[in-house]
């Protein structure tokens, strides 16, 4: 027999330990020795720490989750993560509690004669497949639809797209990211030709100035905001909060500048005016890497059914653009926006200073905006004119709200017009998708159908008869909610909802499927900085709960698509991801292989030559740049980014005599999305137990309203009674009110307007007119 040296060494060690112990016991008979001292040390006794991206917002913090006896029991920040560097926010630390509320859905429920009846998973899936077949036979394939979410994992969205676009042959796939990130997409596409930010979070370590455009980062992206504060401690950076409402971010910022709703368009143009006037233009950059275009104006607001709009770009030159800017002098814009000319000049000077690196951040303030694509174009204009883009610290950065808004909805392309690579209207893109999906290319329709708002309108009208809703809560989050709830409850509609808890959306369902959430299954999310992060299954889902991916696969097989949905149960996530990567097999979008994602806290695409790309379009960092110059905006045919001429236009509904107040809606630190998860986390619910309406102090005084008083808000679409919050978490400007949307018992979206950005089709939840009275 032959013993390896390590075995011998171990054996010797053990022998030495035993003899030492024996000797010690003999020497000190009254002292107890423990053979295994670590057994006594208990916090992590049996705790197994596993890595996962956070379930909640789009920052994508990496968490280490403590598992004991098959249950998640603790969370800490992953110190190895370049995203959160060991820190989390209160939602992240308590995220695992969201799996354990007592009313978890564990059995499928089918509505029979108005009553929900428990049934088996197989029976529920049979029923769904039967209904889909029946609907397609009687009403055509464009009568079935799926409505998903930025909380879909990458495999969820991928199989949904494959089933609906590739196999069934309808483009009726949309997601709540249309309500959330669609404008960011059109902003990127119009200016650069390719979606998602050029920079990354590391820009925060290099930038000198941060301008937050309508972004209450301290509450909505707290971990990133902590990174800003950390840089301010270390390097003395400047933080500017440019917003319509005073928030925690305003309090923490070096300067808070308030503007009137919608006038950000004018202010952005005024900043460009100042940059041009003061010769702060980086002429070499503009000359080599930019084109000038103008688009259509007076686009309307999409308030009517069947509304359609396609923008047309017209070539202009720098001189014409300068002439256009002449209308936007700081003095003129000051009158419109309420921002003093001095403040406009100050912001322009920060952007214009050649020795300052500037980062712009935004999220829903600019996305949920009837001229949202325009305002994003205008902020890109500022960065392009000064050449402050695609380089460390110079970064216009669009933040996301959902854990996989980028990874799933935008990269997999779960929108009516998109494919995993490219768009349905492009023949080449259709051919590529059909090849990988193993379907005839004719299956994929070249015509986009309905965007999210129009999809719910179609459901109301009866053009859509079957809708499957996964991982989202539209009966809380749709604007002008009443119409869409009534529409979904009409007879002859069949609604399937996959969720983990009862919500107002499961209330309208004909079949409710219990879903396995987050770490109860395997999957990946993609965050705001193009980082794809993997998580393994850590705990068992309760009851019959099943992942959204597997629910879709089961139904697809029942519809006869066994060949396309060939995946093995044990390895399906790996197989799906490998198949998905083939769509992005190029230097501009290559995704990291799964073994890399498993070994580290995510990787940023394009992942080329074993490396994440931190700054796209910059030839120093991005291997996809091929024009031999310093920058290459390869999303556009001539490699040049576009500076857009976009004017100010008023919003569809402004306060008037009958409805004299602006209503803005949004989130709070403690709750995420529609609150169906965070409200079930005790510490979060106790910190923020219900919705409220924020009022300005002067308005409250005039109306004799104090914090806690009941206040009735009325818009042209509905009314609601809420408790008042005067000078609390946020302070709206005079004649403005703010209401968070997380509370399903106070549905503020019954009041909001379903007007949307004609280019992105994303609704504006930030501006409509209401009246306020004390009750």
């Amino acid at each position, binding site marked *: 027999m032959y013993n390896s040296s390590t075995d011998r060494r171990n054996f010797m060690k053990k022998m030495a330990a035993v003899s030492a112990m024996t000797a010690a016991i003999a020497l000190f008979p009254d*002292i107890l020795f423990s053979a295994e001292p*670590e057994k*006594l*040390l*208990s*916090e992590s006794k049996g*705790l197994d720490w596993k890595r996962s991206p956070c379930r909640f917002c789009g920052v994508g913090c990496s968490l280490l989750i403590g598992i004991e006896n098959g*249950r998640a*029991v*603790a969370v*800490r*920040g992953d*110190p190895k993560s*370049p995203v959160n*560097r*060991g*820190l*989390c*926010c209160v939602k992240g*630390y*308590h995220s*695992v*509690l969201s799996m*354990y*509320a*007592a009313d978890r859905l564990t059995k499928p429920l089918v509505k029979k004669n108005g009553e929900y009846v428990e049934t088996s998973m197989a029976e529920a899936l049979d029923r769904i497949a039967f209904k889909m077949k029946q609907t397609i036979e009687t009403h055509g394939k464009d009568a079935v639809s799926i409505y998903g979410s930025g909380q879909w994992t990458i495999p969820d969205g991928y199989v949904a797209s494959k089933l609906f676009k590739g196999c069934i042959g309808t483009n009726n796939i949309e997601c709540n990211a249309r309500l959330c990130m669609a404008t960011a997409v059109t902003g990127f596409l119009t200016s650069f030709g390719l979606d998602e930010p050029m920079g990354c979070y*590391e820009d925060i370590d*290099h930038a000198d100035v941060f301008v937050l455009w309508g972004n209450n980062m*301290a509450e909505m992206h*707290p*971990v990133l*905001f*902590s*990174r800003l504060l950390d840089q301010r401690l270390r390097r003395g950076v400047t933080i500017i909060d440019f917003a319509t409402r*005073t928030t*925690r971010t305003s*309090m*923490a910022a070096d300067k808070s500048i308030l503007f009137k709703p919608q006038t950000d368009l004018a202010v952005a143009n005024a900043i460009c005016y100042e940059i041009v006037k003061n010769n702060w233009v980086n002429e*070499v950059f503009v000359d080599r890497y930019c084109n000038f275009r103008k688009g259509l104006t007076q686009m309307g607001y999409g308030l009517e059914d069947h509304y359609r709009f396609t923008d047309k770009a017209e070539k202009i030159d720098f001189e014409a653009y300068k002439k256009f800017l002449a209308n936007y002098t700081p003095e003129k814009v000051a009158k419109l926006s309420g921002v003093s000319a001095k403040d406009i000049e100050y912001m322009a000077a920060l952007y214009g200073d*050649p*020795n*300052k*690196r500037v980062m712009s951040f935004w999220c829903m303030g600019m996305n949920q905006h009837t001229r949202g694509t325009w305002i994003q174009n205008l902020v890109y204009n500022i960065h392009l004119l000064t*050449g*402050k883009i695609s*380089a*460390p610290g*110079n970064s216009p950065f669009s933040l996301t709200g959902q854990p996989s808004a980028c990874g799933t909805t935008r990269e997999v392309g779960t929108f009516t017009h998109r494919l995993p690579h490219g768009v349905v209207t492009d023949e080449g893109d259709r051919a590529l998708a059909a090849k990988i999906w193993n379907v005839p290319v004719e299956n994929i329709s070249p015509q986009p159908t309905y965007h999210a708002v129009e999809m719910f309108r179609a459901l109301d009208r009866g053009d859509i008869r079957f809708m499957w809703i996964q991982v989202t809560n539209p009966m809380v989050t749709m604007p002008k909610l009443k119409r869409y709830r009534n529409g979904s409850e009409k007879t002859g509609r069949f609604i399937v909802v996959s969720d983990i808890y009862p919500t107002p959306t499961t209330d309208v369902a004909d079949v409710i499927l219990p879903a396995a959430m987050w770490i109860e299954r395997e999957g990946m999310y993609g965050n705001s900085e193009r980082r794809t992060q993997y998580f393994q299954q850590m705990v068992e889902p309760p009851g019959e709960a099943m992942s959204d991916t597997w629910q879709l696969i089961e139904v697809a097989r029942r519809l006869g698509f066994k060949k396309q949905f060939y995946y093995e149960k044990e390895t399906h996530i790996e197989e799906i991801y490998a198949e998905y990567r083939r769509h992005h097999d190029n230097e501009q979008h290559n995704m990291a292989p799964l073994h890399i994602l498993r070994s580290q806290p995510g990787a940023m695409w394009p992942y080329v030559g074993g490396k994440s790309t*931190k700054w796209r379009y910059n030839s120093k960092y991005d291997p996809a740049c091929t024009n031999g110059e310093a920058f290459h905006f390869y999303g556009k045919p001539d490699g040049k980014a576009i500076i857009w001429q976009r004017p100010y236009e008023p919003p569809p509904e402004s306060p008037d005599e009958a409805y004299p107040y602006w209503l803005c809606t949004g989130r709070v*630190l*403690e709750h995420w999305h529609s609150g169906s998860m965070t*409200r*079930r986390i005790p*510490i*979060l619910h*106790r*910190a*923020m*137990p219900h919705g409220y309406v924020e009022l300005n102090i002067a308005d409250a005084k005039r109306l004799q309203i104090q914090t806690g008083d009941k206040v009735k808000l009325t818009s042209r679409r509905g009314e609601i009674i809420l408790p008042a919050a005067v000078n609390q*978490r946020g302070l709206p400007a005079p004649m403005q009110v703010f209401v968070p949307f997380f509370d399903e018992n106070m549905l503020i979206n019954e009041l909001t307007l379903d007007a949307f950005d004609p280019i992105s089709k994303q609704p504006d939840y930030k501006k409509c007119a209401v009246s306020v009275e004390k009750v």
Partner: protein
Amino acid sequence: MKKRLGIISLFTLLFVVFIAIWDYSYRTGLECAATPEGGDDYVPMVMSSEKGVFRRDRYALDYARMPIDENHQRSLKDYYKNRAFPGAPPSIPHPVSDARSMGGKDCLQCHENGGFVAKWDAYAPVTPHPELLSCRQCHVVQKVRALFRATNFKKIPAPAVGAGANSALRGSPPGIPHRIQMRENCSACHAGPSAPREIRTSHPQRINCMQCHVPNKKLAADIGGF
């Protein structure tokens, strides 16, 4: 003459070159500042080294001399009451006047160095990470007791403390039974009048805690091999 012309033209040439170089450097100076190389190394936001252990050294002798205020001691029960699980950020058990403040100086007034607060009849607990200024990103006030829906979350028991609980040998210095991420400064929780009595050290003046108290083997990273 020729020589002089040569010298003059040489100087003219040098001058022109000087102007050209100066102009170039001036122009580059006007462009964006130099871009740093992107590396994967970064400074973590939470302290990764153990140097946090010495953070509040200057109070060590005061703590050693301070008599114990028997009537205002915190217990571990109080300590864990505000935490969803051992190691979770504690909630704020008292009202906070300004809802819009993120914390920072407001919280640090009392929680950076502690001290007796007559209003709450208690000693303010000391934060081990005063450099993280957005306090209310993780610590939230509990406004109500009621729940939205009941929960089945199970809180794991806190590490056992007391004589022998974490000691390898009887009477040997106990090991550290918890992770020290975000909690590198031992004296924040283990020294001074706000320290829970079960875990208050008898010798705060010793400063270099980890000289004798070492992290649990399982909590430290295993380098493998050998």
